[in-house]
């Protein structure tokens, strides 16, 4: 339902085709935001362009970018490009969408290369995306980190991923205190699909859209869990 609540706002969504990324992009665009969709890697570029086409087909505004999130310098360049795409008015909303996970592996057996790869994407990349977002998001803007429920679900085989997600949650809580004076909110939204396909989780996207709206101005440094009612 087009509400126009985010009319005139611009949003950058990193790893836009992963997990709930497409629903988030659609939800923000439906409320009038101009969305800039980032493709994590060459292989996602086609999917991102398809998402751009879908949003434009529904009368929304969207563009695509690509960039490597494991290199802080490349993240800075990505933000430069995103700012150029929205013609210098600045970015209001940054959604750091979850990059992919690692296949389940007990802590005792984790290969160092896999540890480095997953940590680079899920902790280090998140940190430096948050750094750029914290510096550049416009006053009264909004930063949201999305992920699955791994840091709370705590399953066997999930240590590296859960640890990285938990680290990202802490970065958000601290950043919220550091940039709150500019009116910028920083929050985490996680989705517990409970067996449903993640792409069907429009409810998580609706929460992200709410956080980007003026009605959520007093919520910052928080972690909102969506999906199946949690056991703990």
């Amino acid at each position, binding site marked *: 339902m087009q509400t126009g609540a985010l009319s005139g706002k611009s949003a950058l969504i990193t790893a836009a085709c992963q997990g709930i990324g497409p629903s988030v992009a659609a939800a923000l665009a439906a409320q009038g935001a101009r969305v800039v969709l980032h493709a994590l890697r060459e292989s996602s570029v086609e999917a991102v362009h398809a998402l751009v086409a879908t949003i434009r087909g529904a009368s929304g505004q969207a563009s695509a970018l690509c960039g490597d999130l494991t290199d802080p310098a490349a993240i800075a360049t990505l933000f430069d490009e995103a700012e150029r795409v929205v013609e210098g008015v600045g970015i209001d909303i940054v959604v750091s969408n979850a990059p992919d996970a690692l296949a389940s592996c007990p802590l005792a057996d984790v290969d160092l290369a896999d540890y480095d790869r997953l940590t680079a994407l899920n902790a280090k990349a998140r940190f430096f995306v948050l750094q750029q977002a914290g510096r550049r998001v416009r006053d009264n803007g909004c930063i949201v980190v999305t992920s699955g429920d791994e840091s709370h679900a705590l399953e066997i085989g999930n240590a590296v991923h859960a640890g990285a997600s938990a680290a990202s949650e802490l970065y958000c809580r601290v950043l919220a205190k550091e940039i*709150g004076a500019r009116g910028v909110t920083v929050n985490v939204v996680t989705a517990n699909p409970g067996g449903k396909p993640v792409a069907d989780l429009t409810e998580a996207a*609706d*929460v992200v859209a*709410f956080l980007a709206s003026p009605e959520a101005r*007093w919520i910052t440094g*928080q972690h*909102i869990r969506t999906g199946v*009612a*949690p056991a703990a």
Partner: protein
Amino acid sequence: MNDSSRATAPRTPTTPLSGKVALVTGASRGIGAEIARTLARGGAAVVVNYRDDADQEDAATVVHDIERTGGMASAVLADVRDPEAIAQLFDRTAATFGGLDIAVLNAGGDAVVKSVIDTSEADFDRVMALNARGQFVALQLAARNVRDGGRIVFISSSTACQPYPGTASYSGAKTATEVYVRVLAREIAARRITANVVSPGMTATQTMMSQTTEARRATVIAATPKGRIAMPVDIADVVHFVATDAARGVTGQILHVNGGLL
């Protein structure tokens, strides 16, 4: 008074709660009054509950505010500490507006600020009666009365998650109710009713102003990233969101609404 045209009024982006019925306890003033007004602005018909005759005029003012802007509201007296009164409150709500979709349990307080060592049995019982026992009964009735797809919201307090000396009985009571809500959420999930806690930080109400010192408020402002104290509408806007379809995926949660203080 059962306006059937209300039930078929189209839900629009600006009136997402059109056709819904809401009950807000402790709604004669402060955060509760603002929640009632905000839900009404969203299109809901609202029962404005107040505790005793002293609050009747304030409750009538909230109803008048809502009706003046084209909304529907009704003030109903009931002391949340009295199980029979709460039952009658829910019955009156159904009789007035035909059903119930959104139950906001805002009534609370009676806080006794005393150390654990100095808290009397009477102090303990009084704090528990309103903030735990009464809320438990209200939650039971809400769970029985709220229609499928509906909402149950308990208004807690940031004191519950960051208790300080003097607040044991109050924080304990609020926290007990938070657990009731989290369990209830899982028990009624199959009916697509969500149950959540909204936990406000310091909010500019008459009650808060009379219970805090200038120095305490200054400390809180200094520690709040947003650099001010909440207005009731800052809290009410979040409760409104929880009541809408957009929040269908949020249940069993404690939403801390405190401008980043915690």
